[in-house]
């Protein structure tokens, strides 16, 4: 039986190559410029950065990422197992609830933590009558760890849920017939093939922790991102900021290299694709503890922050405080997110089609290059765009176009991974079949290839919309002066300590993001499209 290898296929039309190359060039140019900018003053700024900042900041950044990795594993792995492999009541509902924290931007969660547990916060207010004047400090390491764990565990949860769902039940049954109990079977048969998935998911989490800017800044824990921002804002020392951004970028790329290594290692010993649906383990007496556990996870990660926001909103309403006008920033944010989704998906399509439908080493190299930027933190890309705009694209600088360009650089990998799945699921012969029926290459793309991508387009659009609406640093740094966005308002209010004023815009952002999550859960593209 002859199998067609992609490498022997006819070259794709040049019309796909031109936009694909242009997009990848766009994603690489800011990075290139960051390199130029950080090295143009020689070694001095590097020595300065290493000497004064890098030591403690590096340690604190790594410490935070490690703690978040441990926290998310402890939450996500049991939750994934419970919802994928046990006869849990309302399994589907729990799956949705556990994915919902994706709708909460890290800075909003951090803001809710401050509003609930900070001095003059909600809990302090409750405890005042019984004589508690001080709560344990929530600023710093533990607050940042708890916040990032709560907002990022769904990424690991989705990866592990998909992994648990593909375990071949026959292997477990074979183990059971060989006189092994459920628990030894889990540890010796079920879990070992999932270790690459766990490692891959954890690397996503680590990248998230390295990249986060909003939560660590709000909770006053100094990592690379917050220090870079401070350097940029306070002293306007662009070279120093560029040097630090380069260091953070290098750290993130090292993590990405680890992820690629894990993935190629895992491919060699792939988890068998299940022929049957796994048998659901009865929970018996463990049903109630399991439900309590999941309620705690869903409650603390999703329902509690929303409750806090609603409390501060009603508090503000009762006190009759002035709310900043929300209509225009909301329109701006929705426009940026929708526009970002549109341009990113359009930019991703040629690359995804080349890689999934035509193949060849050049297309693969192009796609891999586009994935590189996935490791770059938003703040790093935003800074690169600032430098690039000031020096080379003055007429674009401080317009919405440069914001959209930053979104393409940041979220192209998300769009690519969502488009890839439906494009590569269909027979590789479809374009050849259309050609043998007499259709010209362009009409083949329009009539056959693009319709194949349609389900992926919706998933990719929702995914980029979700990432864009939650995005803080690039939006903050690049938005034109006077172009108010919702994240900008929340950021301003939270920094000014006006909690009630930030509650309404925060709820608006969560609402828009939740709509995008709902679309993703609905089309079930989320498990395969994240990261």
């Amino acid at each position: 039986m002859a199998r067609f290898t992609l490498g022997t296929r006819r070259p794709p039309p040049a019309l796909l190559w031109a936009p694909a190359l242009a997009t990848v060039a766009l994603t690489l140019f800011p990075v290139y410029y960051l390199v130029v900018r950080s090295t143009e003053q020689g070694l001095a700024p590097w020595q300065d950065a290493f000497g004064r900042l890098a030591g403690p900041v590096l340690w604190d950044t790594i410490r935070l990422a490690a703690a978040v990795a441990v926290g998310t594993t402890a939450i996500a792995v049991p939750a994934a197992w419970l919802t994928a492999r046990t006869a849990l009541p309302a399994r589907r509902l729990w799956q949705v609830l556990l994915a919902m924290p994706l709708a909460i931007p890290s800075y909003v969660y951090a803001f809710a933590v401050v509003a609930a547990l900070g001095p003059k916060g909600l809990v302090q207010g409750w405890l005042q009558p019984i004589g508690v004047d001080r709560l344990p400090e929530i600023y710093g390491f533990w607050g940042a760890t708890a916040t990032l764990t709560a907002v990022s565990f769904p990424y690991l949860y989705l990866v592990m849920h998909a992994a648990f769902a593909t375990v071949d039940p026959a292997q477990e049954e074979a183990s059971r017939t060989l006189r092994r109990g459920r628990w030894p079977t889990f540890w010796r048969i079920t879990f070992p093939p999932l270790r690459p998935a766990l490692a891959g998911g954890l690397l996503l989490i680590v990248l998230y922790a390295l990249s986060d800017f909003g939560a660590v800044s709000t909770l006053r824990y100094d990592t690379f991102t917050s220090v870079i921002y401070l350097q940029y804002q306070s002293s306007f020392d662009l070279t120093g900021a560029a040097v630090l951004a380069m260091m953070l970028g290098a750290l993130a790329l090292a993590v990405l290299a680890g992820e690629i290594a894990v993935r190629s290692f895992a491919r060699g010993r792939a988890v068998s694709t299940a022929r049957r649906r796994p048998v659901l383990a009865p929970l018996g007496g463990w049903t109630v503890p399991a439900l309590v556990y999941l309620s705690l996870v869903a409650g603390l990660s999703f329902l509690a922050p929303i409750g806090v926001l609603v409390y501060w909103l009603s508090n503000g309403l009762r006190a009759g405080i002035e709310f900043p006008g929300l209509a225009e920033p909301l329109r701006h944010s929705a426009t940026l997110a929708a526009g970002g989704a549109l341009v990113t998906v359009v930019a991703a399509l040629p690359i995804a089609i080349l890689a999934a439908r035509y193949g060849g080493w050049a297309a693969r190299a192009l796609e891999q290059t586009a994935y590189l930027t996935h490791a770059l933190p938003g703040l790093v890309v935003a800074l690169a765009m600032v430098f690039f705009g000031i020096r080379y694209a003055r007429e674009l600088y401080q317009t919405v176009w440069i914001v959209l360009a930053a979104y393409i650089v940041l979220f192209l990998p998300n769009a690519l991974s969502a488009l890839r799945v439906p494009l590569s699921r269909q027979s590789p012969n479809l374009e050849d079949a259309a050609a043998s029926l007499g259709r010209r290459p362009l009409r083949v793309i329009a009539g056959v290839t693009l319709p194949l991508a349609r389900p992926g387009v919706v998933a990719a659009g929702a995914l980029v919309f979700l990432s864009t609406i939650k995005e803080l640093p690039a939006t903050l740094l690049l938005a034109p002066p006077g172009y108010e966005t919702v994240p900008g308002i929340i950021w301003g209010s939270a920094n000014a300590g006006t909690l009630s004023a930030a509650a309404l815009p925060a709820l608006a952002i969560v609402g828009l993001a939740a709509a995008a999550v709902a679309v993703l859960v609905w089309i079930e593209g989320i498990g395969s499209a994240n990261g």
Partner: protein
Amino acid sequence: MAEVLRCEGVSVRFGQTDAVREASIALEAGEILALLGPSGCGKTTLLRSIAGFQRVAAGEITVAGALVESRSHSVPAHRRPVGMVFQDFALFPHLDVAANVGYGLSRGAGRARRVEELLAIAGIGEFAQRHPHQLSAGQQQRVAIMRSLAPEPAVLLLDEPFSNLDPETRAALRIQVGRLLRSQRVSAILVTHDRADAFALADRIAVMDAGRILQVAAPEAIYARPASRRIAALAGAVQYLPAVARAGLLETPLGPILAAGPIADGPCEALVRPEWVTICRGGERTGMVVERYLEGPFSRLVVRLEDGSMIEVLAPSGLSLDPGEAHAVRVDIPVPAFPAGREA
């Protein structure tokens, strides 16, 4: 009969390896030619060169009298009068059956009528509005064939069209597809690794191995008079008996057998396929049944001959020959022989 396709000395190279080496075949109008060979022998590559998906390193391909492919010249796939049925059928998942079949037809008043006609010929008119995933594998195959026939190609290429089907559907569809292609007088090349496909459908078979075409002949000839041991093995079950050739007669442990082709006098080996051996009760008892495996209508017997050599015999199960019994064993038809000792 007019010639619709000719491949002349076609070679295809992938990097260092030659996937197809100097292959030459010709196809007459209305003829079905099977390219038979093991996986990786280059048969699909040759097919894709004819379709226009694979450039050749040497040789020429002519379709309906026009040169379509050579080292320096290549007509794009969409301008060749060549239809193709893919192994996985490659039906467009977003189009219904009628739109799939009509895809290769130009827009116009005639299109709908032609599609309707084609669907009626294939007996799938009632599925016109369904999508491919709602059809059985056999129905999908018919859609794929009618879609490729719609633009009336000069040559139809079928790439392993039965390999995605279970054995029973497969046998039934071979007959149906054969009827369909012959009723439409389609000129076709069928690529397959399954000799049953080739025997059931083809007017001629081209046996391919390691990129070369070894023999082109009618199915009966490929089976009964293979040009080499390799072809013999690709065409069916083989076993050899030591023999001495003398004037066209083979002296074997089964007695004298007529040689099927010219063979030089001297020691050689006679190809004796299991069902060529006749075994019957009584007479001169020349073979002892040692083992028996029932295969339904036939039984596979392992028989020890008087000189101690073992042969396999396919005999009707109704004969009820039991292990331990001795019976008359002989070969009544001419068999091919190959020079002894050498791989030929």
